[in-house]
Each structure stands twice: as structure tokens, then as C-alpha cells.
């Protein structure tokens, strides 16, 4: 049953304690709908929910699918619903939930591909659409050297640049769940991050997305996105500041000379 020792992601904990993990399974080839499956997992106080899942995969049920990579809250792969709240499995500890059951489900508001793996095509398409890179004002030869930026200029966007694309904010946003066309919190936070960067001149190109019917006004300031962010980004702020920007643009276009933008 067990794979060779070298390949295992977990070691057998010997604390004697066990915790029940109720995991939402969905195997498209056999399940009509997702079903909870319970596992009794031995654990020690240093084990994360991710390590609990790895224990299940290594020792109890090799068919369980989930995404993970870094184990230290920077790759953004292991976002899932843990007892109903979007969290990184690597950053949530079994000891904090014990003796309750741990209910683990795929991130809310996304289609489930299999078990805890979601379909993220929509997120990736939106990510590409905002041009998440610095768009220069004009082509700049290497010989001119690096861009200079003051600490104050950096402060403006710094928190928004901490986003790791883990999509927890999407699983926290009921407006995204109700209308998946909504650009959503994380993408707007990233868009805002580039718009605020003194080196960037792409705001004008990103504007139609902000202003559109799928843009910022789908947000109703629930604010849960900012509560669940594991990197302390405030996407709700990015979205709501851009509502004001979009409103300015809406009315200013009426007084701007013709040809001054769409």
C-alpha cells in the first residue's frame, strides 16, 4: 500500500492523536456529484491540513487529488475550503481544529475538476486580460539603466504586489459565485498594483476592463475577500478605489474633447 519511503511526503506521526478529516471527493468517472469521505488521520501538533491530506494520499487512499507545491504559503497552489472558509492548506494547522472534524472542500465558486482540484481557466484568462506587467511609457533602451523609484512611490502599490494568485478571494466573493463573469477581487488588485506603479503607463489600456459591465461595479463591498487573503492584500480596497476612478472616467468623458478616448 505504501510507496517506497523516499517518495513519501509525510512521515508517520507518533503522537498517538488522530483527527477526522472529511474530504469532498469528486471523481467525474464515477460520481454524479461531490460526496464527503472521512479519513482518520494520525497527527502531531506541527502538521498542517496539507500534511494531513498528504498522509491520506500516502497511507490511506492514493486516489485523492489536490494541488500543492511549496508548503510555505508562497506558491498559492493549496487554496481550499477548510471548515467552510477559504484558506491555504499549508498555512492552516490541524492542532487549531482538533478535536473538531476538518472539513476540506475544493475552493468555492469554481468548477471542480476532481476532488480538491478546481478548474482555473477563467481566472487565468482574466489574469492575462489585465496585462499584469509593466507597460512602459515609451521603449527604453537597456543603456538608459534601471528605473528609479522612491520608497513613497513603492509604498503605493506594495501590498497589492504581494498577491500569490491563490484565488482564496474568489472563493470568498459571493458576487463572483453569483456572476462568474465578474473580473473579481484578486485580478482587480493586480490591475491596481500595475496602475499604481510609477514605472507603468498601462492604466489607459486596462481602463475598459474596470469600467465594463463585468468590472468593478459587480462588487457590493462584502469585504470577505480582504479578510481571507493569506498575504494581507486588500483586494476590496483595490476594487472600491477603482469604482471611484471608473465613475470619474464615466463623467469626464462627457466633457473631454472628442477623440480623447473611447
Amino acid at each position: 500500500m505504501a510507496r517506497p519511503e523516499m517518495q513519501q511526503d509525510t512521515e508517520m506521526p507518533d503522537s498517538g492523536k488522530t483527527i477526522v478529516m472529511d474530504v469532498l471527493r469528486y471523481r467525474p468517472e464515477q460520481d454524479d456529484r461531490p460526496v464527503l469521505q472521512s479519513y482518520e488521520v494520525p497527527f502531531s501538533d506541527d502538521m498542517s491540513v496539507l500534511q494531513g491530506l498528504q498522509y491520506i494520499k500516502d497511507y490511506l487512499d492514493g486516489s485523492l487529488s489536490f494541488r500543492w507545491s511549496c508548503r510555505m504559503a508562497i506558491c498559492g497552489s493549496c487554496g481550499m475550503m477548510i471548515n467552510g472558509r477559504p484558506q491555504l492548506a499549508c498555512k492552516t494547522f490541524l492542532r487549531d481544529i482538533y478535536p473538531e472534524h476538518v472539513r476540506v472542500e475544493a475552493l468555492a465558486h469554481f468548477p471542480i475538476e476532481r476532488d480538491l482540484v478546481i478548474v482555473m481557466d477563467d481566472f487565468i484568462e482574466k489574469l492575462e486580460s489585465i496585462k499584469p506587467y509593466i507597460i512602459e511609457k515609451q521603449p527604453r533602451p537597456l543603456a538608459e539603466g534601471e528605473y528609479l523609484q522612491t520608497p513613497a512611490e513603492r509604498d503605493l502599490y506594495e501590498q497589492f504586489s504581494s498577491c500569490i494568485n491563490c484565488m482564496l478571494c474568489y472563493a470568498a466573493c459571493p458576487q463572483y459565485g453569483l456572476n462568474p463573469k465578474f473580473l473579481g477581487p484578486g485580478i482587480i488588485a493586480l490591475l491596481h498594483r500595475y496602475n499604481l506603479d510609477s514605472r507603468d503607463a498601462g492604466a489607459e489600456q486596462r481602463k475598459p476592463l474596470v469600467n465594463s459591465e463585468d468590472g468593478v461595479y459587480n462588487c457590493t463591498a462584502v469585504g470577505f475577500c480582504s479578510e481571507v487573503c493569506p498575504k494581507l492584500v486588500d483586494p476590496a480596497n483595490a476594487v472600491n478605489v477603482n469604482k471611484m476612478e471608473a465613475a470619474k472616467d464615466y463623467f469626464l468623458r462627457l466633457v473631454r474633447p472628442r477623440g480623447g478616448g473611447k
Partner: protein
Amino acid sequence: MSINLKRSNAPVFWLLFGAGGMLSALVGPVLVFITGIGVPLGLLLPENTLSYTHVHALAHSWIGALFLFAVVALFFWHAGHRIYHSLHDLGLHPGAGAKLVCYGVPLLATLIAVYALASMGYS
């Protein structure tokens, strides 16, 4: 998914919602207390506080009329917008009819307020 770039007309309604939300957060509680509790019960306020002479004089002045207009109209726009979104939140898929009510009533109320105030004239 294809990304829709059609410009949203929401700014108009969002600004009215925001202005009404702020105004009702600032003066809502005290106004409700004055008109609905304090004066009717004679609590903390003299009974003649809202006498016809006083309130008519208020509505007759530019600044008073503007205040009354802002309160009445913006409270309506704030509530209408929020209720419209709540219908969406509840999964009731508000259609053109709900939109007509949620934004039509505030519009009608605005017009009635203008008419009522204008009919009193200004000093």
C-alpha cells in the same frame, strides 16, 4: 468566457447610492429620532419643534430646501440601489421589472420632492 468591454452605466447609480449611504449614516439616526420619537413623545424636544411655521420656514429657505431635498431623494436612491443588489444576492435574478421599481421609485420620489418644495416657493 469572453471578456465583455461594454461600459457599465452603474457609476450614476453607484454615486447616488454612496451619497445617500453617507448622508443617512451621518444624519439618519438623529432625523429618525427627531421626527419619529422625540417630537411625537415630547422626549428631549419641545412639542412645537416641528410646528408648521418652523418647518415651512425651513423649506422656504434655499439651504433648508436643499437639505430636505437631498435627504429625501438620496435616501430613496441609496435604498433602491441596495435593495436591487440584495435581490441579486438572494438569487432572485432581478429583471427589467425589478430594475424599473428599484430605480423608478427613487426617480419618481425625486420628482415629487422637487414639485413639493418648488410649490412652496423660495425666499
